[in-house]
Structures are given as structure tokens and as C-alpha cells.
């Protein structure tokens, strides 16, 4: 299968600091990949490299020709003085058909928000609107940066149900940063554990048994306390 994105020996440096080192992986159609890692591990840097706002210091990122990316940022810093109704925001994705915009918004559980101002949305509502915009582009690859923050538990369950539904329909691939290990293990085909370099990756059950994963997140997936440990084991040593 032709990968949607192929990353080879990607290294990104900022000044003296190495933010990402020797990253290698491919994303193929229809798979759901989760990116996990402690704060400062380079998750956001990797996302920026994938969407193309950060240039590699070395290595390559190859995108399939014509690849369409749908992206939901962690948050939008909106200026209060910019009047932006939700429906207009969706239209800015390039979708000029009002009915299609309404359908997608309703599908993302946000139908009643169409005339709301973007600046008035709660965190959870904002995530739904961002997802609607990302999906409206009929992307080949959906890149989500902590998409379920601000969603309550039923909201989160519906969010993943919708993602699975869309994946089944369109063969969409999902690449997602998440802090919720329980969900990561249940919803992903593949997990990439990042701490500047890739510590381990593979199917959720394989990764959760990996010593470097256990070093970072503890031994019981889903129940682990989040650790900000920067002490690395033998298997997770990147200097």
C-alpha cells in the first residue's frame, strides 16, 4: 500500500536543542495511529512537521501527491474583535454548500451551534466545530491534537464512535495526539511512544508491555498516573 505520509530520519533542532531525533514511520490509509509521550517529548513539534509548518533540520517527510489533510489544533487563539459565526468558519474550509455544512455540523453533535460566535464556544464545543471543519474537507488523513480535551465522557464516546464511522465509510487515516491512555489503547491500531525519539511503537498490547513504555507510563495501561519523568531507561535513551 502506498503510504499517505512517509517520514525518514526526521530530525528537528531549535537552537542547541534537539526536539526530534531520527523519527521514522509511515502512515497508511484507514489506520488509526496514536502519538503518546510526556510533556516536552516533541509531540506538537512532530504534528507541525506533519502539517508542514516546521521544516526538518534533516531527514525527509514525503506526502502522497494530492494528499488532503484535515487538522484540528489544540486550540484556536481567537481575537475578540473578529466576528466569526460558526457557519462562516466552516465555509472558510472551502465548502460553499450550506446544506453540507449543516449536515456535517449536526453529525459532529454541534448542529445547534451554527449561528454561535466562535469566541463564545466552550472547549468541548470548539473541538466539535474543529472536527466538523476538518471532516468537511473529506481528508485522506485526519491529524488531531488532543481532540477530546473539554469533552465530557459521553461526548468523548460519541467522538470516537463518529471517528470510527467516518473511517469505515471513507478509508480515512487518523493520527492523534492523546493523553488519555485508556482510550489510546482501546481505539488505536498502532501506538507511537515518543520522547524526542521513538521509544517504541506497534500494536497497543505490544507497546504496553514494552519496558520503555512502562518506564514512562507505568505498568498498568489506562490506570497509570501520568509521569513527567525524564530519566530514561536503557531502551529509551536518546542522547
Amino acid at each position, binding site marked *: 500500500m502506498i503510504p499517505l505520509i512517509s517520514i525518514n530520519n526526521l530530525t528537528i533542532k531549535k537552537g542547541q536543542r534537539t526536539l526530534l531525533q531520527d523519527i521514522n514511520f509511515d502512515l497508511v490509509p484507514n489506520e488509526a495511529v496514536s502519538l503518546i509521550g510526556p510533556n516536552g517529548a516533541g509531540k506538537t513539534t512532530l504534528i507541525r512537521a506533519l502539517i*508542514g509548518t516546521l521544516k526538518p533540520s534533516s531527514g525527509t517527510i514525503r506526502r502522497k501527491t494530492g494528499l488532503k489533510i484535515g487538522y484540528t489544533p489544540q486550540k*484556536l487563539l481567537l481575537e475578540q474583535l473578529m*466576528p466569526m459565526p460558526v457557519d462562516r468558519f466552516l465555509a*472558510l474550509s472551502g465548502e460553499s454548500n450550506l446544506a453540507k455544512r449543516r449536515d456535517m455540523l449536526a453529525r459532529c453533535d454541534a448542529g445547534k451551534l451554527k449561528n454561535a460566535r466562535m469566541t463564545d464556544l466552550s472547549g468541548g464545543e470548539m473541538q466539535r466545530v474543529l472536527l466538523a471543519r476538518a471532516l468537511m474537507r473529506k481528508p485522506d488523513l485526519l491529524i488531531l491534537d488532543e481532540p477530546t480535551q473539554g469533552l465530557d465522557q459521553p461526548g468523548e464516546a460519541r467522538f470516537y464512535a463518529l471517528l470510527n464511522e467516518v473511517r469505515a465509510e471513507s478509508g480515512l487515516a487518523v493520527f492523534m495526539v492523546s493523553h488519555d491512555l485508556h482510550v489510546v489503547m482501546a481505539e488505536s491500531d498502532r501506538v507511537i511512544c515518543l520522547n524526542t525519539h521513538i521509544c517504541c511503537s506497534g500494536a497497543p498490547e505490544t507497546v504496553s508491555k514494552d519496558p520503555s513504555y512502562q518506564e514512562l507510563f507505568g505498568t498498568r495501561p489506562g490506570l497509570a498516573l501520568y509521569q513527567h519523568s525524564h530519566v530514561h531507561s536503557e531502551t529509551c535513551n536518546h542522547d
Partner: protein
Amino acid sequence: MIDDFLIRAIMAGVIIALAAAPLGCLVVWRRMAYFGDATGHAALLGLALAMSFSMPLMLGVIVITAAMALTVTFATQRGTYAADTILGVFSHSALAVGLVAAAVLPGVRLNLLDTLLGNILTVSNTEIMWIGVGAAGILLVVKLFWRTLLNATLSSELLVAEGGSLLHDRLVFTLTLAFFVAMSMKLVGILLITAMLILPAAAAAPISRSPERMVVFTAIIGVLSVGGGIWLSWEADIQAGPAIIVTASFFFVLLNVFRR
């Protein structure tokens, strides 16, 4: 009977107010008031250089303001200083260097008061024609790139992820602003160009429900400010530039009071 020069002044002012509307909204949405200042202040240096080297004045102004706008855009992206500091440094340095250049360069003869505060009552038919061409160009380019400009204002990451070009956004925004500075110097002078951009836009914000409506309301408020300001200038015998901005600030207060 209204005098010819008043009609010319109002025509030029109205055209400038229309071109200012989308640019002013973008400056306000992007919190880049200082950026307008830096670009505007660079015009004085452009003017002095063009005079000294016997080049067309507008060309000198456009080249120097565009260079300033591009430099500031890329300097703020480097992130060594806060954007606010960089813009302050460039804005005030540009004004000071311009004033010094105007004083020491040979062959520079300009009325400093008119340059700083504008003198729309002396606008000629040829100048009106150039202002019209400039405004049409600005409005056309902004219209063509409107979606990119709005998306970049919302989130540069979203723009790039969806396949848009940040470079297009930066070039369109900085170059249209440089042209705007060159054509509106005559109206309000280089000290008040930012005011002409942001006051009508800020006044329009509380009554606007979408970006496009805000542009329309900004244009209306800008046109009314130009009309009111030129009338005020004629009646009270004061400079038109400050009178226009006083009128615009009156609208700003009025619309904010009524909004509450």
C-alpha cells in the same frame, strides 16, 4: 456652490476610506496596529530618499515601505524579541531616521507638517487618478486572497495544514499595506495612517456579525469620517487629517456607547 478642491478632496478621501476598510479590519484582527505604524513611518524616509535622488516620489515611498513591511514581518518571526518590542523599535526608528534624512539629505524640500498630518485639500486630478488605481488594485488583490487572509488570521497552522500558503498571506498583507501607505499619505499624513486603518474598523467591530459585514461597516464609517472631517476642516479652518481622525474617534465612542 461647493468648490472644486473640496470635491476633489472628498473623492480622494472616500476612495482611500474604501481601500482602508479590509486592511484596517485585518490589522485589528491580527493586533498589528504597531505594524501599520512602522510601515507608515517608513514613508518619510522613502519620500526623503526619492526627493534627494530625483526619483518619482510614490515609487520611493512604495519601495521603502514595502521593504520595511517585509523586514518587520520576517524579523518578528525569528522570535528573539517579542513582536511588540520589534515593532516598537522599527516604528520609532523609521520615523526618527526619516526626520533626520529629511533634514540632512541634499535636495529634500518638503513641508514637514503636511507630510506628517496630510493635506488632502491640495490633491490634484492626477493624484486622484493614481489613488483610484491603487485602491482598485488593493481591493482586487484582497478580494482574490480573502479566504487565505482570513484563515491565516485564524490560525497559520490550520491554513498550512489545509494546503494554503503562508507566504502568499504575508506578501499580500505587507505589500497591499505598503501601497495603502503611499496613497493615503496625502489624506491623513504618515502619523495618522494607522489611525485611518484601525479607528473605523474598531468602531465597526461591536455592530458586526461576520468578517465581511465588518468590512462593509468599516467602509461606511470610514467614508462618513472622511466627509465629516473635511467639512469640519473647512468650517473650523483646521487640518483635514486630524479632523478626519477626530470624526472617526467620535464614531468609535458613539458605537461603543450605544452597544452597551
